[in-house]
């Protein structure tokens, strides 16, 4: 279990001698075996926060407890030992270019015979499915392969925690998916606690069960991923959720004056967002029939997040203004959020 309490970390900016709050009073608990996402725009302080877990950054104040042990009070030697149980992988992989894949993975192994090291390295390379590259140098590998090697190296000393600092941000979407799948498998196989730092909502959506949203050094929202996705509270969170949904394209269409979204008099355009996990009812065709309005679907996007459906549609209502209101009320009663985008009724 990782327990962060009231973590504060300031950096002195050289320009005006004003301290910059990189992390400003953050408390966070991450349970064993969780995959926990920390999402934020660049500069939000998430990279600094994750470095406070293994004390690559020492917090100015606050407490960092891992399995009940206060990390900030450890002596240097104890800290080095503790760090071997907290693996970390990076956006730029950080493999040692003068060492082969084998030597890179062997780097953190200490106090073992040659045979033991060889056995362990091969085990690890098997685990991340890259055994055939044992004697290659990092410069000969693709980004995805490099990250696999980095994961093997991070797991060398059987850590209980794996910190991923933008680990997929330098990878293409397909490779990202395969690395995320690998992390998911490792989480199950080794009961590894994984902390994922990212600016990509896709990543959180893909593998995290719980997440925290960071902005300006603070956690502004946290909880299980489905709740964050379906009912984002903070504007920054809403922004993030929007980046992953096709429903935000409607704004672009309106801005570009697309004929697709030109309303005729009497029409109303709205975004219907499903808040509850159940979108199996035929909501559109039912409302259309029951209230005698035309409902034209412009865009639709429903996704699976943490095993539940999240998403919605952008529709244009056409019909008697009163009947449109009743349809909207019906949706409210079904726990569907209706956001009016344009109204050309009056």
């Amino acid at each position: 279990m990782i327990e962060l309490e009231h973590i504060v970390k300031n950096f002195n900016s050289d320009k005006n001698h004003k301290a910059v709050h990189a992390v400003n009073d953050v408390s966070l608990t991450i349970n064993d075996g969780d995959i926990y996402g920390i999402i934020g725009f660049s500069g939000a302080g998430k990279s600094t926060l994750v470095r406070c877990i293994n004390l690559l950054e020492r917090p100015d104040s606050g407490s960092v407890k891992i399995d009940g042990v206060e990390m900030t009070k450890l002596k240097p030697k104890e800290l080095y030992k503790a760090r071997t149980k907290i693996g970390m992988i990076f956006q730029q992989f950080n493999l040692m270019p003068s060492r082969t894949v084998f030597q890179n993975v062997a780097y953190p192994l200490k106090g073992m015979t040659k045979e033991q090291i060889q056995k362990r390295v091969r085990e690890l390379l098997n685990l991340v499915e890259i055994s055939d590259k044992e004697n290659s140098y990092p410069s000969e590998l693709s980004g995805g392969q490099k990250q696999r090697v980095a994961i093997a190296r991070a797991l060398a000393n059987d850590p209980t925690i794996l910190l991923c600092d933008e680990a997929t941000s330098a990878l293409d979407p397909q490779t990202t998916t395969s690395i995320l799948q690998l992390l998911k498998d490792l989480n199950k196989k080794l009961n590894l606690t994984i902390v994922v730092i990212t600016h990509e909502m896709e990543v959180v959506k893909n593998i995290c069960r719980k997440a925290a949203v960071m902005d300006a050094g603070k956690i502004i929202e946290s909880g299980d991923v489905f709740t964050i996705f379906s009912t984002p509270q903070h504007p920054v969170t809403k922004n993030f959720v929007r980046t992953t949904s096709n429903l935000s394209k409607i704004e672009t269409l309106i801005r570009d004056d697309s004929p697709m979204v030109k309303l005729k008099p009497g029409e109303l355009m709205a975004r219907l967002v499903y808040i509850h996990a159940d979108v199996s009812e035929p909501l559109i065709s039912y409302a259309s029939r029951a209230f005698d309005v035309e409902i034209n679907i412009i865009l639709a996007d429903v996704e699976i997040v943490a095993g539940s459906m999240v998403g919605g549609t952008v529709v244009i209502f056409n019909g008697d203004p009163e009947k449109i209101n009743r349809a909207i009320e019906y949706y409210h009663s079904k726990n569907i959020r209706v956001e009016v985008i344009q109204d050309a009724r009056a």
Partner: protein
Amino acid sequence: MPELKILLPNLMKRLPEFWKACGDTLLMEVWAGSIVFVFGLIFGIILTVTKPGGIMENKTIYQVLDKIINLFRSIPFIILLTALMPLSRFIMGTAIYVRGVIVPLVFGATPFFSRQIESALAQTDKGLVEAALSMGSSPFEVIFRVYLRESLAPIIRAITITIISLLGLTAMAGAVGAGGLGDFAIRYGHDRNMIDITWITVIVLVLGVSIVQWLGEYLARKNTH
């Protein structure tokens, strides 16, 4: 070889002296070079790890070392040679011959080599250091297993450049009675206008520099992946 006697009349008359001059130059290179290597490497490492943001950040040590290096780098070598004569006598017992110039050679080349090492180590990706620390490496492990190992190629290049610049200093040291090729060329080639001696000295030095340069580049490449 009678042709050589016609082509290089003055040199052929002084062959034993020429070989001794070559030997003296080599001796100065090896002695001063070895000491410079040890001190420069240590200072370069200290600069790297104690500088702001380094893994053993220490403002005082960094500032003091930084200033001392700048001080010695700004003194022209010919002045350093004469200024350090008392120290030389104290440490080596003499201020002339090969023994007498080792001290000024070390003082002249160490600051240069320290800076070369500093900039070689600065090429190490900060991410590698961070990764090593995250795996539980101590600062000393980071120095030996990351900094020195991962910047082997730039370190080899730094050594090459320093050996070559040290060769220039040994020639200058000849002026205060150190012996060696510089002294040989000045005494005969310049003072007595024996042009063949000047030319041969130049050729030997160019050959020496080329071999060092080639060897350095070869080793650096071999260590780049």
